[in-house]
């Protein structure tokens, strides 16, 4: 069974980078463009991990994280926050809500894989043989 990862970011660029980072692994990737869509996707797909942006329209990442943790069905889903804002207050705020880890943009794909690999068991895809 592939690991189910939900990427929630209003930036298509970041979603593509996340997708590229996990491509070599047995991962089923789901995408959402804001917190509202992300909450719905989290309830529907029950992902093993959520990669969550902070600043988004409609519903931001902090609000989505708060709602995720308030819901018995989703509160155990681990979340890595992906944020362009590394300020002390910002980091403290998201840490209080119950985030498993956070990654500050700019980031390298290897950093994302390393942090995700500490939470879920990433398996490399088997090489394709002709």
């Amino acid at each position: 069974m592939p690991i189910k990862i939900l990427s929630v970011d209003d930036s298509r660029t970041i979603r593509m980078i996340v997708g590229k980072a996990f491509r070599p692994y047995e991962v089923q990737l789901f995408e959402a463009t804001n917190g509202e869509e992300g909450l719905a996707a989290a309830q529907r797909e029950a992902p093993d991990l959520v990669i969550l942006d902070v600043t988004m329209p409609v519903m931001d990442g902090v609000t989505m994280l708060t709602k995720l943790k308030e819901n018995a069905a989703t509160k155990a889903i681990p979340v890595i926050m992906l944020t362009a804002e590394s300020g002390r207050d910002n980091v403290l705020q998201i840490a209080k809500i119950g985030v498993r880890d956070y990654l500050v943009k700019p980031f390298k794909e290897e950093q994302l894989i390393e942090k995700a690999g500490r939470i879920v068991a990433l398996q490399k895809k088997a090489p394709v043989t002709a």
Partner: protein
Amino acid sequence: MSQTVQITEVSEFMKRHLADVFDTMLSLHPVLLPGAELPPPGGRVTGAVGFGGETVTGAVYLHLTDPLARQATATMLGLTLAEVTGEGEVNDVVGEVTNMLTGGLKSWLCDAGVECAVSTPAIIRGTAYDIEPMPDVKREWLVFDCGQERFMVEIHVKFN
């Protein structure tokens, strides 16, 4: 609240932060050209992200030439230049890089006691345009050399 940060400090922070963002996300190592004249008008893609709070308002503009914007897009998304065919993906990448530049600035300002929030990115495209600052807004230009291309970061800041 009195002003605690100077525009020159903002500019110095941006020089360091831009080097980090370009190295990490684009594998590019631009060289600052102190006192350089602004590049001549040409096809440009500009990312714009505003920031504001009780004591500060402003914006960061990243002006890339068309070829550099396409190169950045290819690098960031793991594509070949030939695969970068639409304006949409270039706009997304330029917007995201500008967002990272401004997000870093926002964090630095907040840690210095100047609370603010950032806007979502906007994109401007064209061949000959200038962004006029509002009255009392200080403007800083940073011009960089990046291989065959020059690009600019423009910072507008007003402390209340």
